[in-house]
């Protein structure tokens, strides 16, 4: 072992600089002491990389890492659809809610023509819980039958990816692309979190350095990242066009990120990325995290779903939504090319976007109109909960976000309509 003796110089210099108890070294002197300490106490041994090390390294090299990222996201999505869609929602929940819960409520709730029947049970002729649109029918079906399994499996896969050490590697890999839209690699974390729920995602934008980056990320999150609840509903309502909707959102994410990064003044600094070693996730930690995240989500989500349906039903009863639909009709029909009834779901989207998509399925539309309106609802506005956390990050940013949002909805909605016309589908 070689031993590096520190020079006498730096220490005496330091002694001049400080008192007896609190003395401050220069950074060079400190590093010299560190070297001396390490030389005495650490013996490195001969280190040969193992297959696992080399495989780990290949996952951050672009040529091999991008296929791995594609596969990881594929697995993420596939596990999500198999568990939440096929097994839980279609396999069990639809049966429970449509076969037992809805018929039972419809038979015991008095007076199908009354206002309280309309609010709590919804359409007396509905044969499935999604389209009944009562607080106790659609509200419970959406929150427990669809959103709960979706969120559970989402957070499980997310936690495993994170705890195994793959997520930071994905961040390194995505860095080049994300820099083009004014962000850096770690923006992938809020982006993926946003696929579960925008609320923790907005909180996670704090890992980005500058105000500019946080603003871009928050706005893009609110605009183009559908949350877990929306994904679940999308799969239930428009399974055949989820791919196209996603494509529209992805293009929008890149395009408007690029534009925003050029319009907004500010820095986009490099970040020192720290990649921990791959390791097996610890069962207890995964379980604890999964529980914390699901618990926090449910506490926030279920009241909002129920309250959202209640409010929308009340607004319908009060005639507010039909009036708004009339008012905004020209914009929707001429500019976006969707039926005027979509105005209602767009108002509902403010409360919870997933509800809005469920409502859209009740309006007769062509496939183009359905895709266009689902994209619109997704980008249109964050739900109230997201709104609240964004407000917590600063009201000026929130107002700017809203301005960007309205502009983008207007431009992008028109663009999709234009492309639809060119392709002859609109």
């Amino acid at each position, binding site marked *: 072992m070689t031993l590096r003796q520190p020079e006498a110089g730096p220490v005496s210099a330091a002694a001049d600089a400080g008192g007896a108890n609190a003395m401050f070294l220069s950074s060079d002197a400190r590093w010299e002491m560190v070297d001396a300490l390490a030389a005495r106490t650490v013996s490195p041994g001969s280190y*040969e*990389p*193992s*297959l*696992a090390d*080399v*495989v780990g*390294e*290949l*996952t951050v090299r672009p040529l*091999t890492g991008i*296929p*791995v990222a*594609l*596969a*990881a996201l*594929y*697995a993420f*999505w*596939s*596990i999500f*659809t*198999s*568990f939440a869609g*096929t*097994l839980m929602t*279609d*396999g*069990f929940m*639809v*049966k*429970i809610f449509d*076969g037992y819960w809805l018929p039972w409520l419809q038979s015991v709730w008095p007076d199908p023509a009354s206002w309280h029947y309309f609010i709590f049970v919804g359409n007396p002729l509905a044969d499935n819980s999604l389209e009944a649109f009562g607080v106790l029918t659609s509200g419970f079906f959406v929150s427990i039958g669809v959103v709960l399994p979706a969120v559970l499996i989402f957070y499980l896969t997310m936690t495993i990816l994170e705890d195994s050490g793959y997520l930071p590697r994905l961040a390194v890999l995505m860095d080049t692309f994300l820099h083009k839209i004014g962000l850096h690699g770690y923006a992938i974390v809020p982006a993926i979190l946003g696929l579960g729920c925008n609320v923790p995602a907005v909180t996670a934008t704090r890992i980005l350095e500058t105000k500019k980056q946080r603003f871009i990320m928050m706005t893009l999150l609110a605009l183009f990242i559908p949350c877990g609840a929306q994904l679940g509903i999308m799969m239930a309502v428009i399974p055949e066009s*989820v*791919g196209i909707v996603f494509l529209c959102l992805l293009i929008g994410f890149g395009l408007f990120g690029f534009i925003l990064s050029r319009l907004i003044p500010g820095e986009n600094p490099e970040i020192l990325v720290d990649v921990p070693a791959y390791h097996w996730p610890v069962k207890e930690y995964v379980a604890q995290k999964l529980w914390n995240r699901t618990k926090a989500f449910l506490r926030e989500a279920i009241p909002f779903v129920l309250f959202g349906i209640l409010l929308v039903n009340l607004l319908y009863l009060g005639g507010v939504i039909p009036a708004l639909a009339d008012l905004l009709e020209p914009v929707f029909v001429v500019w976006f090319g969707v039926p005027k009834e979509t105005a209602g779901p767009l108002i509902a989207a403010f409360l919870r976007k997933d509800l809005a998509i469920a409502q859209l399925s009740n309006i007769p539309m062509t496939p183009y109109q359905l895709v266009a309106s689902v994209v619109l609802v997704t980008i249109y506005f964050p739900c109230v909960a997201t709104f609240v956390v964004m407000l917590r990050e600063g009201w000026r940013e929130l107002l700017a976000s809203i301005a960007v949002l309205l502009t983008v909805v207007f431009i992008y909605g028109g663009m999709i309509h234009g492309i639809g016309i060119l392709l002859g589908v609109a």
Partner: protein
Amino acid sequence: MKHNSRNTTIQRTGPVSRPGTIYSLYIGLLGLVTLGFGCADILIWAGASNGFSWGILAISGDDFFRWAWGGVVMVCGGLLLLSGAAHAATSLHQAAKAAVGVILVWVIAGTDFLAMLCAAIPAKASSPAFLNTLDGFLAGFAPPYTPALVIFPFTLGLIRVFRSAVHR
């Protein structure tokens, strides 16, 4: 086997042993088949044919996500296997490339299996019961299978190569 595989896998240079050549051929063949299956997934999804079925193998090509995206992952897996095939038994770097390729195939096969499992547990939509019958559950695993599941058993042979490299 003449050479102890524990040693042959970490030697970066040295004579290519007979088992080494066999490993390379095997990995290369696996890569070609995976590549072919991946291309078939994408082509059938794109509308080149209305589904394909041969023996226990079937590619329905109905879903964008499964067949287009999954097909790209299979193509990448095949290419990685091919590029890692040469000297896979003697070069750690080559073995690692092949390992990444195999992992991609495993991801597709694993998610395909999970999809079968999740579809087989609940009873059919028309039946009033919640859980499937045992016969119905087992029938959910009957052929035909997706290409990744068909290849899967053949990739298990490679674990031997990789394990010797992991433990050295």
